[in-house]
């Protein structure tokens, strides 16, 4: 069946308008504002000590959270799909908890637990600072990104079944060899997507992280927090646009790296 020309044009126009208004204009506007005074102005604003520090904090959080989530996510998914243990239902529900709980509540609960007056508040007296410092922000980010890898890997594990793994074991492979040579390569699509989602969320998380951060530029502030801080607290909208552009750049780099890694994995 052929959609006649007029409705087809109308559909296309609607779709394009929708994308333009909702996505392209806001992003484009930020890019325009960022570069309207030239590259130099952007560069100056993106390399202030506070900005460099925020980039460093953000990348550190990503570098810690992603490997932890990959390891935890793959093993949890394996346990959920292959395991036959009591309490699977409970684990399933717990994994989805971060989707259900508002990030602000996550932040607040971390303060209750790790803050000076919290259960583990004693740590602060020994000079180990969790809340209002990097460890707290890492904990908050782990909490909100926890389901991504599990939920992306799980259906792939279901789909591939366990016959390939059984075949590997009959061919003499140990459980560990089977995992590295058969299971991991088979789930790499799901895993890669889970990592992309994790990175994107870790870069962009605001609610949970803002509660456990001091909110002082150059102290414990991520790039996302810096964008917000410059925008309303410091009356520096231009700085805010510049930081936002850096943030988008980082997300883009992560996506590209993942795609490259994927391509290479497929060819090997």
């Amino acid at each position, binding site marked *: 069946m052929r959609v006649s020309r007029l409705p087809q044009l109308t559909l296309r126009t609607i779709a394009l308008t929708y994308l333009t208004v909702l996505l392209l204009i806001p992003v484009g506007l930020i890019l325009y504002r960022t570069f309207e005074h030239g590259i130099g102005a952007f560069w100056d604003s993106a390399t202030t000590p506070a900005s460099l520090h925020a980039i460093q904090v953000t990348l550190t959080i990503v570098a810690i959270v992603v490997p932890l989530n990959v390891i935890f996510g793959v093993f949890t998914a394996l346990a959920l799909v292959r395991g036959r243990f009591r309490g699977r239902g409970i684990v399933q529900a717990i994994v989805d908890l971060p989707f259900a709980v508002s990030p602000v509540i996550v932040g607040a609960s971390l303060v209750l637990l790790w803050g000076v007056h919290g259960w583990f508040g004693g740590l602060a007296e020994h000079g180990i600072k969790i809340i209002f410092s990097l460890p707290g922000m890492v904990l908050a980010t782990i909490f909100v990104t926890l389901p991504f890898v599990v939920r992306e890997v799980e259906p792939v594990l279901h789909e591939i079944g366990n016959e*390939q793994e059984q*075949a*590997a*074991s*009959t*061919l*003499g*492979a*140990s459980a560990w060899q089977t995992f590295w040579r058969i299971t991991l390569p*088979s789930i790499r699509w799901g895993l890669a997507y889970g990592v992309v989602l994790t990175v994107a969320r870790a870069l962009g998380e605001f609610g949970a992280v803002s509660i456990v951060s001091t909110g002082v530029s150059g102290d414990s502030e991520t790039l996302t927090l810096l964008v917000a801080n410059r925008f309303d607290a410091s009356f520096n909208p231009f700085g805010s646009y510049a930081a936002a552009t850096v943030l988008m750049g980082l997300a883009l780099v992560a996506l590209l790296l993942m795609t490259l890694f994927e391509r290479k994995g497929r060819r090997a």
Partner: protein
Amino acid sequence: MTAISAIDVNKHYGDFAALDNVSIEIPDGSLTALLGPSGSGKSTLLRVISGLEVPDTGRVLIAGEDVTALTPQKRGIGFVFQHYAAFKHMTVRDNVAFGLKIRKRPKAEISARVDELLEIVGLAGFQRRYPSQLSGGQRQRMALARALAVEPKVLLLDEPFGALDAKVREDLRTWLRRLHDEVHVTTVLVTHDQEEAMDVADRIAVLNAGRIEQIGSPRELYEEPANDFVMSFLGPVATLGGKLVRPHDLVVSLRQIEDAVPVTVERVVHLGFEVRISLRDADGEELSAQTTRGEAARLDLSEGQQVFVRPGHPAFDADVAAPAA
């Protein structure tokens, strides 16, 4: 010598006995078929032998060594799955080389062995393809090469041709028979297809509801079935006077003869050389007799005609089969 023995193996799933005190010995170099209806426990027995399934009680010996406590990894077996279990992310070459790489054989040796095996299974030009670029039959031959690469003490095949269409199945089982004659590795083949079992195996174990009903050569099973189950599973049967008879062991006569039962002709079907005569006895039970074209011509049966049947063999009963004078 015995290549595989399973001794008093029991396997339950909940209350259900998938294997009920099964014992079997598989002679060295044989090609044995485990034959039985769906759910009879064939796969379970094969998986217990392979170590992929752990029996509740009982022991498994491979080449005289008690392997009951060993994982599949340590049993020195080759296993082929119904749905190929091809490593989808590896080329044909890497699939076949897998077991050898795990064993850390020298590169040159692996390469030579893989080439040799792909030659044997007829996939010589397919080294660089991925499993998704192969037909079902080719995938299964790759899986066989992969299993054979590690020189297993025994080769275990779980309905290897079950997912293929009839023509390919037939070709592959002839091919498997030839392969076995060349390679001589002790092979156990699971199938629910009696024709396949009779065609390739030199020994058949018939399973039913988790038990072994009979073990023997195809001919023994066909000619001297231990019970009605084996008899009916190994070929077509007709019930005559409460007893099972093969349709080609029925004598059809136009006149009343000794021990014969009166029946009505329902249909006469010409199947080339053979002719199948569908009959109905006085109780309304259907049975069919099978005879030759010449014999059918002589009888010249028509539908609705009253005739007499009895067990026997037409060749030895020419007189009774002759039309009444």
